[in-house]
């Protein structure tokens, strides 16, 4: 039998050193953007019961979840999403809490993708949920925090596009179609296939109110700047559809006042999961990443499934895609630290240890050598591209090595320790 000991499963990834450090930095920047706005950290289990994610308004297909069994034969999954566990927590653990509550999280989600198409199956999501209130303020806040979180990471050239789940839902209601034909129209609208949509409507839609039909026919083209909302308002007199559009305008006005209007576009043909989202929906795009780096919306029906009727809105950022986007614009921070190694003889460990602490306090990355000779230490530093080595061999003396084409050194008396730090800095700057 083939032994898999030396391999990792498809769709997974080892993240090493610079890349790993950058990922943690970005995760922290994102988290800070939420924490500063009053969001509270939450970590849900990696393993959940399958039942949590199984139901009418589920957004993840059964075959996309990693499944396993617990010791009593019950089906478990590696969490494929974090919003649903937060809905579960809200409905079952927060009876005494006062709402609204703001949550934030950074965790891996697991989804089985088709292999060999370049998608990873473990993705880090960073996001927020605001639960217990349905208001324009909450809608606008969520989108604004999304924009600012991306900006805080250094992303500038991106668009967040806003749609409204209720707009399409209320229009299609009026057409009185079979479930299958509704699904077809949804497909054409989502595909922006206005030509096929036209043909289909001419052939299949017999019963309708002219105003909703006109709007649906235009739907695939209704994306762009705020003008398309005005255009849509003129296309229909369906009351719920108009309410949905007014919701978008109200939210947009607040975003505009926050000075972030330039990031916003609109797409009324964005439907996503029709049974899941119940109000404003949005997602963010940038150059060099094919899919979206952020997606979210209002989902007032989800928590009810767990036994408590509470409105909610949130978003998740795909951290791995965001890092790809940042790499594309050269904004990844692989900057080198001020880095040095201290070599010491065992008798002088105490001194080396204290010296290292001083350097670290002054912003250096300081390694203590693990070797028993100065020569090995210098080789080690050379191989790691570290250009400074301090050698402590005698009680009264410090030897400072600096690499410029070869190792040069200079001796100092121990008592000049403080001046010496400045010297080290200066040498580093050179």
């Amino acid at each position, binding site marked *: 039998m083939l032994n898999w000991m030396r391999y990792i499963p498809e769709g997974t990834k080892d993240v090493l050193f610079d890349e790993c450090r950058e990922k943690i930095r970005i995760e922290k920047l994102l988290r800070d953007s939420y924490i500063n706005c009053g969001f509270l950290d939450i970590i849900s289990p990696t393993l959940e019961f399958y039942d949590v994610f199984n139901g009418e308004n589920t957004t993840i297909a059964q075959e996309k979840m990693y499944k396993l069994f617990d010791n009593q034969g019950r089906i478990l999954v590696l969490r494929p999403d974090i919003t649903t566990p937060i809905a579960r927590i809200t409905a079952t653990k927060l009876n005494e809490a006062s709402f609204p509550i703001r949550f934030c999280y950074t965790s891996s989600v697991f989804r089985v993708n*088709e292999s060999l198409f370049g998608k990873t199956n473990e993705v880090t999501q960073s996001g927020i949920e605001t639960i217990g209130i349905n208001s324009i303020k909450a809608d606008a806040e969520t989108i604004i925090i999304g924009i600012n979180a991306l900006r805080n990471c250094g992303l500038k050239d991106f*668009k967040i596009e806003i749609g409204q789940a209720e707009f399409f839902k209320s229009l299609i209601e009026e057409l009185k179609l079979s479930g299958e034909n509704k699904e077809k129209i949804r497909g054409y609208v989502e*595909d922006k296939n206005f*030509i*096929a949509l036209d043909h289909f409507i001419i052939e299949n839609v017999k019963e309708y109110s002219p105003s909703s039909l006109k709007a649906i026919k235009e739907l695939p083209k209704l*994306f762009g700047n705020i003008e398309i909302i005005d255009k849509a308002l003129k296309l229909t007199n369906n009351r719920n559809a108009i309410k949905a559009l007014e919701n978008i305008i109200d939210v947009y006005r607040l975003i505009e006042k926050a000075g972030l209007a330039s990031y916003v576009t609109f797409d009324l043909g964005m439907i996503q999961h029709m049974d899941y989202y119940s109000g404003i929906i949005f997602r963010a795009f*940038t*150059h060099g990443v*094919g*899919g979206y780096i952020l997606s979210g919306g209002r989902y007032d029906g989800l928590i009810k499934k767990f036994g408590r009727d509470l409105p909610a809105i949130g978003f998740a950022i795909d951290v791995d895609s965001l890092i790809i986007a940042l790499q594309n614009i050269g904004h990844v921070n692989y900057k080198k630290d001020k880095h040095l190694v201290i070599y010491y003889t065992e008798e002088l460990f105490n001194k080396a240890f204290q010296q290292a602490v001083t350097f670290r306090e002054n912003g250096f990355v300081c390694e203590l050598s693990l070797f028993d000779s100065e020569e090995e230490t210098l080789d080690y530093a050379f191989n790691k591209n570290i250009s400074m080595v301090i050698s402590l061999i005698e009680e009264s003396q410090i030897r400072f090595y600096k690499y410029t084409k070869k190792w040069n050194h200079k001796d100092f008396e121990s008592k000049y320790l403080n001046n010496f730090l400045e010297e080290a800095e200066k040498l580093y700057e050179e």
Partner: protein
Amino acid sequence: MKNKNTVRIAITKGRIEKYAVDIFQESGIDCQELINKGRKLIFHDSVNNIDFVLVKAIDVLTYVDHGVVDIGIVGKDVLLEQNKNYYEVLDLKMGKCKFAIAALPDTNLNEGYNRKKIATKYPNVARNYFRGKGQDVEIIKIEGSVELAPILGLSDAILDIVETGNTLKENGLVILEEVCDISARVVVNIASMKLKREEILNIISMLQNSVTVKENLIAG
């Protein structure tokens, strides 16, 4: 890094490529580099600022899905077989053919209780079709010359693309059922559609115009 305003189009190599070049030329997009291609892999139209790449059919959607090309020209057969994210914006109404079930004469797939075997290059299309009919079949993936499978006794029938029907006839097979029509489609990456809205809508409307002109020519 590629220029932000350049639109990249992936065209399926082969049959669709010829139709696509025609339709692009008629739309006023310069395909000279594509026609005299030599060994190059990327071709440029500097007037409209478009890059073309020629790739195999099944790779078109992979490139579009990842956003490294903005637009793909690909057969509906490929769209039906692969489950990917994209906007399917236009039917070019060319490269027309259809998916059909074919078998040796006198085959009846609805007869008896034994599970029928279907050989095909398109396992997902076959699965969806028979599932839709409520029929349980065994699907066998074959990479080429699918017609051989029933002749050699590997399968009861095949699901394949039929253009003229000549290949089937020459091998003594007949069409049992037609599954659906196929033609070349224009697909667009979802992010590109938003980030390069004007450029892409412009190309789509140019293409749509020449499709309409062609249709009217045939009708008129």
